[in-house]
């Protein structure tokens, strides 16, 4: 074979292998690690399997935060002002977690409709609202 062709062939093989590896990785990793977002209303209306990780969110309802003083267990209710969702979490909550503030949780839904959070996110400054919630609220208006 002509050396220049050979050289191109090798490069082509390398590119092909690299792309195949990447496509395979991207598709498999995406299908496993894609968390859909649900509002409390959507959770009520949709059939969601208990096995999959989802994200849910809304505003933390006033007076709903209950802390167990001995075990770090916390329960609270998030609302999208139409429906509510009961959330339980074990661990330390982020600094900006507060009543009437936007929050996004990641975890699994239980049979009884409550939600076990593995992670609670309440980021950024006091005006920050997760975009999902900002969307929900603006839809209402």
């Amino acid at each position: 074979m002509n050396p220049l062709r050979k050289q191109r062939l090798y490069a082509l093989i390398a590119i092909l292998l690299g792309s195949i590896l990447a496509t395979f990785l991207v598709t498999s990793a995406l299908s496993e690690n894609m968390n859909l977002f649900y509002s409390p209303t959507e959770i009520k209306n949709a059939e969601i399997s208990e096995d999959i990780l989802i994200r849910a969110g809304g505003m933390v309802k006033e007076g709903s935060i209950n802390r167990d003083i001995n075990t770090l267990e916390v329960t609270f209710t998030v609302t999208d002002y139409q429906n509510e969702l009961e959330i339980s979490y074990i661990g330390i909550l982020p600094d900006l977690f507060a009543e009437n503030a936007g929050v996004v949780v990641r975890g699994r839904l239980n049979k009884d409709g409550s939600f076990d959070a593995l992670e609670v996110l309440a980021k950024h400054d006091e005006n920050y609202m997760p975009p999902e919630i900002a969307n929900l609220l603006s839809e209402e208006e």
Partner: protein
Amino acid sequence: MIPEVGHLALIAHLVLCFFAGIIPLFGIYFRNQALYFSCKRISLLLFSLVSLSFLCLVYSFLIDDFSVAYVAQNSNLNLPFYFKFAATWGAHEGSLILWIFAMNAWLLGFIYLTKSDDESFSLVTFSIACQVMFAFSLFTLFTSNPFERILPIPPINGADLNPSLQDIAFTVHPPLLYFGYSGLLIPFAIAVSAMIFQKETKEWAASARPWALLSCSFLTLGIALGSWWAYYELGWGGWWFWDPVENAAFVPWLLSVALFHSLITSQTKGLFGKWSVLLSIFAFATSLLGTFLVRSGILTSVHAFALDPERGLFILGILAFFIIGSLGIYSLRDFSKPTTEKYEVTSKEFGFLLNNLLLVILAVAILFGTIFPLIYEAITDGRQISVGAPYFEAILFPFAILLGILQGFALYLSWGSTKSFTFLQRILIESVSIFTLLIIFIYVVFSSFNFSSFITIFLSVWIAMGTLQITQRFKSNYWEFLRRRAAVIFAHVGMAILVLGVAVVSNYSIEREIILEKGDSYLLEDKQITFNSMEDKLGPNYVSKLAKITFMDQSSDHEVITEKRTYFPSGQPTTEAGISSNVVRDLYISLGDNLQTDIWSFKVQIKPFIRWIWFGSIMIALGTLIAGIKQIRRS
């Protein structure tokens, strides 16, 4: 008055950039020497204008001129003066000024430091850079003017700088990052100008290479500093979150690494010319894309400070213009000149090809994961998803392994084809022995063992061995050798250290959330953690609850302090973690919630080898910096 001076300087900068951006092109098109001008003077003038504008903004911050809307939003009378200074780039408008300033600084460096015998080539490079700066100035003035006033009644006090940004690392992290991003402007401008003039690959690659290296150096430092800042300031002990904005910095970093490696081949062998052009374009484009993602607020991120679709659209316009424009020139250019250099699979050329291939595919996959939520939202009519850290880790891991294996023997490859593999055989033999030793070592030290920790620790040693063994080729004169190879040794050994840090910290960190009453102790591994006291403290612009904790192990004990601060006037709470660190591990404790009188929750972590991540990054930055400076001196 002063803000108006800054505003005017910025307008003057805009106008000057406009003319400097088009006149040389006419001059060259019509072959009219009268339209040529001296880049040196114009670039100095542009730099002075943007510096003046920047200083006016700094001044407005320092004297608390709250009639300037941007100052009122991001500063406060109580803020210490050094944070007032840093607040200049605390939000969107000011960071743009800093960005334009950085572009000007790079351009000035390029014009003054590189000797070019081809006047029209550097003139066109200069004017292309001016076009980009024109677009940025236009963007700043029309959508994000930092000098806008609140008149007639200015507020008495400002709203304050976001408390988590009130930190030393924050004062340096954004400038470094912006310098990194904007440095990619120079290779971009050189590549486009090289296409216009049908420049020899070897020639233009030589002038682009130092700037790609220097940008990479700044990006590395900027990213590392950001990671360090997040680690101690956010109070979570995480050092990388795969946040969209982190990815937006990581992707250009990957491409800048690919670019300077590709430019080595282009400069020495005249190969990969087209590829280097494309990489220069896309490295710059991704750095713009990063800004677009951050500023438009279309992605959820801790960094998204300006949620304004209009700005996003404007940046998208700039991005489209320069990508389409440069790709248009690319498609018109005649690349048919045959390459004469041949190379085998065992050659350095092929090594660089693999390196580029892996880095670019990795960059594309990460970029894809970052913007996938947007794509998904568009095709499913508004369903929202997030792509979490596990996706990115699953992608990074295999590519990092392949890149690491390649890096371990890359330095033994010769141009054309590698004849002698004795060095390679040696590292093979040695790596087998390291392999065995490592298994024993890991098992003894960490008493647990898994595939991912083993393979990453092994890779780190493999890269370090592969790099350090090139010292054996130069037995005779060490100084001469160091002078020639210091940069590559620094950067590659730095990579090995970074990999080791990542490997150990992600596999052997310990994390507990505990409840302690004042005076109580908790036993974590062999360390006793005691909650000594709780105090109230008043800072310059915050009040804080301050817990004193003692760590005690067999040999020593040390006290750390962790705080919960509430900043006024915003009322925003932050956690300040208490960290006690040494070379091999960090003890990291952060104060949680107050459960009852004198009973608090705490998050306690042991982070082995975490410092190695940043130390490795500093070495990489140093290596690329040395290489960049050497290249500038050579040209």
